[in-house]
């Protein structure tokens, strides 16, 4: 029976969650990963939402109870029939089967909005983007693909902010890691990453305590009522630094082999670290299960 | 609130109006149609109660099934189409889904008989009554005019069980008083007479009354009975009349096989055999034409009825003559018979 590692990724739409999830899946091995988009658990379609007058950001527009039930069943090794939401039409399609896999990534607006949901995950990430970056991306996407003007995009972002603050951002308090993409002048990709972890649940801090990775800025800050260690990754890594990094964080060779480029941008560094972390959780789980099996026999 | 009319008005028109009134009084009334709502007049109900009206399109079998499902959940269901599509086409569906479980569905079929007119044979139902008669649990009602059709709709809603209501396309004159509650299973004597019983249904009642007027001028008094319920059949009224008149004639805008004529013949044969004749479509298909031309062609006018009455009376007179002549030879015949069966025939009976 498969005992999946559940990963929850919460964040505003347009923050880059889907890209992040796709890249993580590639690193972990596409055949081992099942991605569940929480958009599929919308309880109202586009027409109905308009009639009621709420955005999809509102939990009431989502069937989170069903999501809890499905994740619970998946944890027990049972397959579930999950609804499917079609973004292009705004309607629902045929439900599809989800079979338990070694890694199940749930991404969306409310993957751990309730405590009962939050308990089901082995790793919860709040994925955020700096406002300037988000604005630029959204403008680029919406003006090109959907024909909006810059003013229209700005207006839409403003309208959504209240719902984001009320319904999506509170999940920061439950997240194990907060990842924030920022503008970085030092990197060739112009994007840097802030990796925030709670002071009382440190992973990077523990690994780093023996040495100092001086490319990174380290400081603490308060976030949603918790003291967080923040690691700022703003520079590209060369091959030597990458080797050093993989030594500190025990990044396995097959993960490294997927990073082909000469200069590793902060985003890719973050992916590597995250994938390594996930693999460690997987390894710990497998060991636990072995022990259980041994004891049973 | 009844319809009061002194002009010609079609029974389907009265039905459409009655449905609206019914819908206002009873929230459980649901109406279905099969893309003929403008013709069957269920459109009136549909406009006022769109949530309780289902036009299922050209899918009569589905309409019957949906009616059964609605009735099984407690609704009072009226479903309509042309008579030929609402009976012939969906016989098994009516048999199994409505009649066998005895569900509360009224099939109110319009455009019955050949008076449909120009559309021709494929749209003219000449066997709907006979088909419905052969199904157990089915009540069959044939209103003679708009007044009866209006009241029959209300009677149908109060009646618990499957029912077939036969309505016409053509505007026809009224022959009954307005506002009289419709009694299911009771034939009505509209005109008393002593010489022959004319059993008529539907739009033929008017023609029968016209024929009776004409015959009166010739000294023949016809008794005209409006059989507005074919099943259950009012045998008592028929036999009571026939005992008086000793001759019968049936008229219907329907095949002579299986309809009112057959119902009368069955009853008379078993209870009180008399000289009789059936008038209707004589085992033929309909055809295109103006309704008035078609009625004339299939011999369903008051003239034809009057002629047929005289013919029946003439046939009976001739039969009696032969009987009188043969009575004298009957004693030899009678002895032979007595050897085989025992008992002498009653010579005085005639």
């Amino acid at each position, binding site marked *: 029976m498969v005992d999946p590692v559940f990963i929850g990724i919460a964040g505003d739409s347009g923050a880059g969650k889907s890209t992040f999830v796709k890249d993580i899946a590639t690193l972990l091995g596409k055949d081992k990963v099942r991605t569940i988009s929480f958009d599929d658990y919308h309880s109202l379609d586009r027409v109905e939402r308009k009639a009621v007058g709420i955005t999809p950001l509102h939990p009431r527009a989502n069937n989170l109870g069903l999501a809890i039930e499905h994740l619970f069943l998946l944890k027990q090794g*049972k397959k579930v029939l999950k609804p499917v939401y079609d973004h292009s039409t705004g309607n629902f399609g045929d439900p599809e089967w989800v079979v338990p896999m070694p890694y199940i990534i749930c991404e969306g607006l409310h993957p751990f909005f309730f405590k009962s949901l939050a308990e089901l995950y082995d790793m919860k990430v709040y994925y955020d983007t700096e406002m300037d970056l988000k604005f630029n991306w959204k403008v680029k996407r919406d003006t090109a693909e959907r024909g909006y003007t810059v003013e229209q995009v700005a207006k839409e972002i403003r309208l959504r902010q209240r719902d984001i603050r009320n319904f999506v951002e509170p999940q920061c308090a439950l997240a194990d890691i907060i990842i924030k993409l920022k503008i970085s002048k030092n990197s060739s990709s112009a994007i840097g990453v802030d990796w925030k972890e709670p002071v009382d649940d440190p992973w990077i801090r523990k690994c780093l305590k023996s040495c100092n990775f001086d490319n990174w800025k380290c400081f603490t800050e308060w976030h949603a009522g918790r003291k967080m260690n923040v690691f700022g990754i703003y520079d590209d890594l060369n091959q030597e630094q990458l080797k050093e990094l993989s030594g500190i964080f025990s990044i396995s060779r097959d993960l490294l082999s997927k990073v082909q480029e000469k200069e590793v941008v902060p985003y890719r560094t973050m992916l590597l670290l995250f994938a390594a972390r996930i693999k460690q959780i997987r390894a710990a789980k497998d060991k636990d299960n072995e022990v259980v099996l041994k004891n049973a026999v | 609130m009844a319809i009061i009319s002194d002009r010609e008005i079609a029974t389907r028109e009265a039905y459409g109006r009655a449905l609206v009134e019914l819908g206002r009084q009873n929230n459980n009334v649901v109406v279905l149609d099969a893309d003929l709502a403008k013709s069957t007049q269920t459109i009136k109900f549909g406009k006022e109660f769109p949530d309780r009206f289902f036009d299922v399109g050209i899918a009569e079998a*589905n309409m019957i*099934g949906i009616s*059964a*499902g*609605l009735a099984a*959940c407690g609704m009072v269901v009226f479903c309509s189409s042309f008579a030929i599509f609402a009976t012939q086409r969906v016989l098994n569906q009516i048999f199994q889904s409505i009649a066998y479980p005895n569900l509360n569905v009224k099939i109110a079929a319009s455009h019955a008989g050949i008076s449909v007119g120009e559309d021709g044979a494929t749209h003219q139902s000449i066997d709907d009554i006979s088909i419905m008669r052969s199904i157990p649990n089915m009540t069959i009602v044939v209103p003679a005019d708009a007044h009866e059709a209006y009241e029959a709709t209300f009677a149908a809603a109060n009646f618990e069980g499957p029912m077939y209501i036969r309505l016409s396309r053509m505007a026809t004159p009224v022959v009954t008083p307005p506002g009289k509650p419709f009694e299911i299973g009771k034939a009505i004597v509209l005109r008393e007479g002593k010489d022959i019983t004319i059993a008529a249904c539907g739009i033929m009642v008017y023609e029968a009354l016209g024929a009776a007027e004409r015959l009166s001028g010739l000294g023949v008094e016809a008794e005209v009975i409006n059989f507005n319920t074919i099943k259950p059949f009012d045998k008592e009224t028929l036999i009571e009349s026939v005992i008086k008149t000793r001759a019968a004639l049936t008229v219907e805008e329907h095949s002579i096989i299986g309809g009112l004529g057959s119902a009368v013949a069955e009853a008379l044969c078993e209870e009180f055999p008399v000289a009789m004749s059936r008038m209707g479509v004589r085992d033929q298909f309909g055809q295109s034409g103006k309704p008035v031309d078609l009625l004339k062609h299939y011999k369903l006018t008051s003239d034809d009825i009057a002629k047929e009455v005289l013919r029946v009376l003439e046939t009976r007179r001739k039969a009696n003559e032969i009987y009188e002549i043969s009575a004298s030879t009957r004693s030899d015949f009678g002895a032979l018979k007595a050897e085989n069966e025992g008992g002498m025939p009653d010579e005085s009976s005639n």
Partner: protein
Amino acid sequence: MPFSRIVYKPEYEELEKKALIIRKNVIKMIGKAQSGHPGGSLSCVDILTALYFRILRISPKYPKDPERDRFVLSKGHAAPALYATLAETGFIPYEWLDDLRKFGSPLQGHPDMKKVPGVEMSTGSLGQGLSVGVGMALAAKIFESGYRVFVLLGDGECQEGQVWEAAMSASHYKLTNIVAIVDRNRLQIDGCTEDVMGIDPIGAKWKAFGWTVIEVDGHDFLELIPALEAISYTSKPTAIIANTVKGKGVCFMENNVDWHGKAPKQDQLEEALKGFDEIEFMESEDVSLDSKN
């Protein structure tokens, strides 16, 4: 107003046991009557078990509760399976099963809604059950009631045109409270469905008529239950294509065209019942025809 509740809520192992009891009773009652349709009755036993012991909000104490879920057995010849399920849920006494198809018995050859509590519609002539289901689902909308309608069809039955009239109308009326389950055992009287009058791709056909299509193994509760529960979040009428084996449970009947409408003789009956006994977990159950629950 009486509150309808599911009578049982057992885990899947319990469902398997129930299905086995029902299968045994199906064969027994057809054998006793020496008349009936074993093949099509056995192929849908798991579907009926899933429905009556997990999904349907019904209660034998209130068979006429206006808020109850409706189940229509459009393939009426599978009546033995329905009767055995109704006996096991408590709608009818077990003694009735001895008199299947006997003169004077309420258990007619095809379900009669006037004679048997728990039967929602008289069926037998194929193709009509889905229309009836659409009517019941429409009534739910008129009454603003939350009950659901489940209709079980045969795959050969999908050759009847009326099924597609009903499918069209369910989609047109945007009925989300109706589920059609097709018992896809691939056989009919005159042979394989694909040889007589091919209905494949059957899933695509339902999809084209505007239904959500879910294909499942009709004998696996792990797939049947989620598929049947999907009605709670679908936005279209749902069609479940359940791939089954005609005659499932009796080895000489499985996938055999001959056993559509033939009753097993005494020796065959014994062989069939022995096959059931050989399954382990039956030993502790009392599965005689008079078993009371």
